[in-house]
C-alpha cells in the first residue's frame, strides 16, 4: 500500500497541477511542491522506521505488494522495496523539489502542463525503482520517458525539437530491445515451467542456457547502456541536457540516470550472473572509455550545460565500472556515487539555469569574472565543482573511492586506468570555474546574486553532500541488509563465505572507510 502511495502521490498530483493552472499561475507550482515534499517525507519514513512496513516477516523485501494483473501472461502488479531501492527512491522526489524550485521563475507559460509532465516523469522513475515485475518495470520505464520528451520539446531552448526527438528515439530503441529481451525471458520461462511469467522471483529461479543468457544479457545491457549512457550510445545526452529547460535538465541528470544503473544492478546482474561475469571486462572497459572520453569532451566544451552533461557521462562511466566489478564494496560505492552524482549534477544544472536567467547565455566565452559580481552563486558553484571532482570529505569522493577500491581486486589494471578519471575530473571541473567565474569581468550590468528559495535549496544540497561525505553509513546501513540476497556478488573479503549473515566481515571492512575523511580532517 505504502509503495503505491509513493508512486501515486506524484501520479495523482500531476493532473491536479495541470487543472490548477486555471486557478492561478502559482497553484501548479505549489501543488507539485506539496506532492513532492510529502513523497520525500514518505520515502524517508523507511529510513527512520525501516520496520514500519506492512509485511510482517522481513525476508528479502522490506515491503512487498502483489496483485494479479494479466494472469494469462503471468503479469502481476508486483512491487517490492529493499535497501537498494529505497535509498535511491528517497533521492527522486528530492530532486523533483529542486526542479520545481529551479523552474519557479524560468517557466512562465503552460505552467500546469509543465508540472504535469514533471510529476509524471518522477512517478515513472519511482515506479521503475520498486517494480518487481518486468512488464511493470517496462511500463514505468516508458512512463518516465515520454513526459521528459515533452519537457524538452515544448519548453526547451533553441533546436529543442531535434534534441527531444533524438532523446526519445535513442531511449525508445533501447526500450524496444529491452521489451524483446523481457518477452524472450518470459518465453524461456514458459518453456521451462509451462506458463509465461514476468515475475522477478520466478525469473530469478530460472535456469537459462549460457547461449540464450548471453543474448538476453546483451539485450538488457544495450537498453540500459543507451539510457545510462555508455559511450557510443551517448550522443543523445549532451543535446538533451543542453536544450532542456533547467527543470528538465535537473530531472534528467539527477533522477533519470538512476533507473538504468538500478536496472543493471537489480535485473541484469542477478538474472544473468554468468553471462555478466563473462562480459564484465568489456563493460568495465566501456566504463573506462566513458570516463576518459567524457572528461576529454567536457574539457573542450564552451557551453556550460554541455560541459556538465559530458561530466555526467564521465561519472556514470565510473558507476558502470563499479556495477560490473560485482562485489559488495563496489556496489555500496555505486549506490553512494549515484546519489552524490545526482545531487551535484542537479545543483550544477540549477546553477546553469540561474546563470542563463541572468546572462541570457550559456556560452562560457561570454562569461568570466562573475566571482566579483555574484559571489554567492560563484562560491556555491565552486563547492559543487569540487564535489564533482571528488574532493575528500564530500559524498562523491566516498562513492568513487569505494568503486575503485572494490574493483581493484577483480581487475587491477582496468581500475588503475579508471582512477585517472579522478584526475581528469579535476581538470574540467576547475576549468568550468576558471572560465565562468575568474578572469576579467565581461558583463557590465549589475547582476542579482542568489537569494531566497533557490539559495536555500542549494545550501540544503550542500549539506546533504557534506553529511553523506562524513557519515556515509547512513546509506550503507540501509543497503547493507540487502547485500546477502544479491547472490551474484563476490565476497569482498578474501576469507568470507559466499553466503554471509548480516553481521559479517563486510561490515567490518566498511567501517574504516567512513573514517577516512575524519582522518584527513583531523
Amino acid at each position: 500500500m505504502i509503495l503505491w502511495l509513493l508512486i501515486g502521490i506524484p501520479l495523482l498530483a500531476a493532473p491536479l497541477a495541470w487543472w490548477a493552472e486555471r486557478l492561478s499561475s502559482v497553484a501548479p507550482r505549489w501543488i507539485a511542491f506539496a506532492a513532492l515534499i510529502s513523497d520525500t517525507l514518505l520515502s524517508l519514513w523507511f529510513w527512520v522506521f525501516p520496520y514500519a512496513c506492512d509485511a510482517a516477516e522481513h525476508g528479502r523485501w522490506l515491503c512487498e505488494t502483489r496483485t494479479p494483473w494479466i494472469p494469462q501472461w503471468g503479469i502481476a502488479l508486483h512491487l517490492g522495496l529493499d535497501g537498494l531501492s529505497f535509498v535511491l527512491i528517497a533521492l527522486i522526489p528530492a530532486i523533483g523539489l529542486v526542479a520545481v524550485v529551479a523552474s519557479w521563475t524560468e517557466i512562465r507559460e503552460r505552467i500546469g502542463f509543465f508540472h504535469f509532465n514533471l510529476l509524471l516523469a518522477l512517478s515513472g522513475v519511482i515506479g521503475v525503482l520498486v517494480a518487481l515485475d518486468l512488464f511493470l518495470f517496462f511500463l514505468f520505464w516508458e512512463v518516465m520517458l515520454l513526459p521528459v520528451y515533452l519537457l524538452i520539446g515544448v519548453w526547451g531552448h533553441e533546436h529543442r525539437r531535434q534534441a527531444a526527438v533524438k532523446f526519445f528515439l535513442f531511449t525508445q530503441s533501447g526500450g524496444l530491445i529491452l521489451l524483446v529481451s523481457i518477452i524472450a525471458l518470459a518465453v524461456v520461462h514458459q518453456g521451462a515451467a509451462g506458463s509465461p511469467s514476468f515475475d522477478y522471483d520466478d525469473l530469478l529461479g530460472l535456469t537459462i542456457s549460457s547461449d540464450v543468457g548471453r543474448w538476453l544479457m546483451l539485450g538488457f545491457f544495450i537498453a540500459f547502456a543507451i539510457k545510462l549512457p555508455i559511450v557510443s550510445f551517448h550522443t543523445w545526452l549532451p543535446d538533451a541536457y543542453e536544450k532542456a529547460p533547467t527543470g528538465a535538465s535537473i530531472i534528467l541528470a539527477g533522477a533519470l540516470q538512476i533507473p538504468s544503473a538500478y536496472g543493471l544492478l537489480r535485473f541484469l546482474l542477478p538474472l544473468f550472473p554468468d553471462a555478466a561475469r563473462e562480459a564484465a571486462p568489456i563493460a568495465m572497459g566501456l566504463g573506462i572509455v566513458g570516463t576518459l572520453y567524457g572528461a576529454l569532451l567536457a574539457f573542450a566544451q564552451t557551453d556550460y550545460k554541455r560541459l556538465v552533461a559530458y561530466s555526467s557521462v564521465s561519472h556514470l562511466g565510473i558507476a558502470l565500472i563499479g556495477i560490473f566489478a560485482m562485489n559488495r564494496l563496489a556496489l555500496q560505492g555505486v549506490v553512494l556515487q549515484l546519489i552524490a552524482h545526482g545531487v551535484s549534477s542537479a545543483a550544477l544544472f540549477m546553477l546553469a539555469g540561474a546563470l542563463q536567467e541572468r546572462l541570457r547565455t550559456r556560452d562560457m566565452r561570454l562569461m568570466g569574472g562573475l566571482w566579483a559580481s555574484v559571489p554567492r552563486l560563484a562560491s556555491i558553484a565552486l563547492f559543487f565543482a569540487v564535489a564533482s571532482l571528488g574532493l575528500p570529505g564530500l559524498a562523491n569522493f566516498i562513492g568513487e573511492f569505494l568503486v575503485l577500491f572494490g574493483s581493484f581486486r577483480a581487475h587491477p589494471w582496468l581500475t588503475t586506468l579508471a582512477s585517472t578519471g579522478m584526475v581528469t575530473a579535476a581538470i574540467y571541473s576547475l576549468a568550468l570555474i576558471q572560465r565562468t567565474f575568474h578572469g576579467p569581468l565581461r558583463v557590465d550590468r549589475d547582476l542579482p546574486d542568489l537569494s531566497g528559495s533557490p539559495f536555500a535549496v542549494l545550501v540544503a544540497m550542500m549539506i546533504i553532500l557534506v553529511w553523506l561525505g562524513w557519515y556515509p553509513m547512513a546509506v550503507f546501513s540501509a543497503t547493507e541488509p540487502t547485500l546477502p540476497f544479491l547472490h551474484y556478488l563476490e565476497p569482498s573479503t578474501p576469507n568470507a563465505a559466499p553466503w554471509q549473515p548480516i553481521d559479517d566481515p563486510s561490515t567490518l571492512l566498511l567501517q574504516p572507510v567512513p573514517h577516512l575523511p575524519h582522518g584527513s580532517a583531523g
Partner: protein
Amino acid sequence: MTTTDLFALSPILAMGSLCIMTMLGIAVRRHHATIATLAAASVVITLGTLPLAASVAPRTVAMLLRLDTYALLYMGLVLAATLIVIALSYHYWTLRVNDREECEEFYLLVLVATFGALILTASVHFVSFFLGLELISVSLYGLIGYLRTRRAPLEASLKYLLLSSTASAFLLFGMALLYFQTGTMVFAEVGAAMAAHGTKPLLWLGGLTLVMVAIGFKLGLAPFHLWIPDVYQGAPTPITAYVATVAKVAVVALLLRFVSDLRMAEMQILDPFFGFLAAASMLAGNFLALLQQNVKRLLACSSIAHFGYLQVALLAGGPFAAEAVTFYLVAYVTTTLGAFGVVTVRSTPLRDADTFEDYRGLFWSRPWLAVTFILSLLSLAGIPITAGFLGKFYAIAAGVQAGLWPLVLLLILNSAIGVYYYLRLIVTLFDRSTAEITIETSASGHVIPGHWATVLSLSVIASMLLWLGSYPGPAIDFIRLVVTDLATTALHARF
C-alpha cells in the same frame, strides 16, 4: 435448411434485409438525419442478433458459411467499427450541407459493404469468399469517389477500381487453379487434399500464391501497397477509416481461417513468401511514412507497416498466432478509428484536414480532441498503457515464441522508425507558435447538430484504447476462448 440454420445466419440475414429497408427508406424520405439514424439502427439491430447466432454456434450453413464464435467476434468488430464510421460520416456530411450532394446513398453503400464484410468473416468456401470480397470492393468504388465534384476522390476511386479488379482477377485465377487440382472449393477440403498429397505440384503452389497476392492486395501489404496512400488521401475521411478498418478486418478474418483450414502453418510452403511480405511491408510502410507531409498519407503508410507487424504474428502459426492477430487487430481498429475520427472532426466544409498545419497547436485550442489524437498516435507507435502497445507486445511475443528472430529484430527497428514520425505529428499538436491562430479559426466553427454522436464515439474509442492497454485480461480471455473455436471447428469442416 432448418430453423437452426436461420438462427445461425441471423446476422447476415438481418443485415441484408436492413440494407433493403434503408434503400426503401431513402425512396420514401430523402432526409439526412433519418437515413443516418436508420443506418445506425440497422447496425445496432444486427449487433443484437449476434447472441442469437452465438446460441447455435458453431454451425456450417450450406457449405458456404461457418458461423462459429470466431466469425461472430469478427462480425462484432466489423459492426462496431461500422457504427463509428456512420457516426463520423454524419459529422462529415453535416459539414457539407451546402454542397447539395445527395449523401443518403452513402449510408446504403456503407451498409452493403458491411454486409459483404459479414459474409467474408464467415466464409469457408471460395464462392462466399469472392462474393463477400466483391461486395466490399464494389461498394467502395462508389464510396471512395463519392465526392464526385472533387478531383482527388475521383482519382482515388479510379485507381482503386483498376487495381482492385486486377487483384480480383488474380484471385479468380488462383481459385480456378486450386479447384482444378483438388476438385473442391471448401477451404478445409482443399487443405485435406493438399495434405494427402506428398509433393506439392507447382500449379498448386501457383494457385495458392495467386490467392495470397489478392489477399495481400486487399490488406495493402508491400509490394501490393501502391494504392494505399492515394486511396487513403483521396477518399472522404470516414471512408478512409472504413477502408482502414472494416475492409481489412474482414479480410484478415478470412485470411486467418484460410490459413488455419488449409493448415498452412504445418506445411510451411509459403512461409518465405509471408516472411517477405511482412519484411517488405514493415520497411516500405515506415520509410514511406518518413517522407510524408500529409497526415492522411502518413496514416496510410503507417497502416502498411502495421499489417507487416500483423504478418509477423500470423507467421508464428498455431492458436497463439490467431490470438495474437486477433488482439492486434482489435487494438489496431480502435486506434485507427480514433485517428481518422479526429481527422474527420478537424475537417472543414472545403477540404479534409490532412496537412500538419491543421493540427498545429491543437493541444492548446482543443485539448480533449488533441488528447484523443495523441492517444491514438501513441497507440500506433506502441507506447505502453495504450492498446497498441499490447498489440505490439503480442506480435513480438508470437515472433519470439516461433523463433522468428530476423523478423522480430526488423519489427523493433521499424517501431523505432515509426516512433519518429508519430512524434513529429505529436509535437505539432504542442507547437505554440501559431496556437492563437488556431484558436481563432476553431472559435468560428459553429456547433453542428448530432455532434454528441461524434463526441461519444471518440470518447468511447479513447477509453477503449486505455482500457485495452491497462486492463486487457478479460479481452484476452475472451479472444482465447473464441480462437480455440477456430482451431477445433476446422476439424469438422462440412456440416
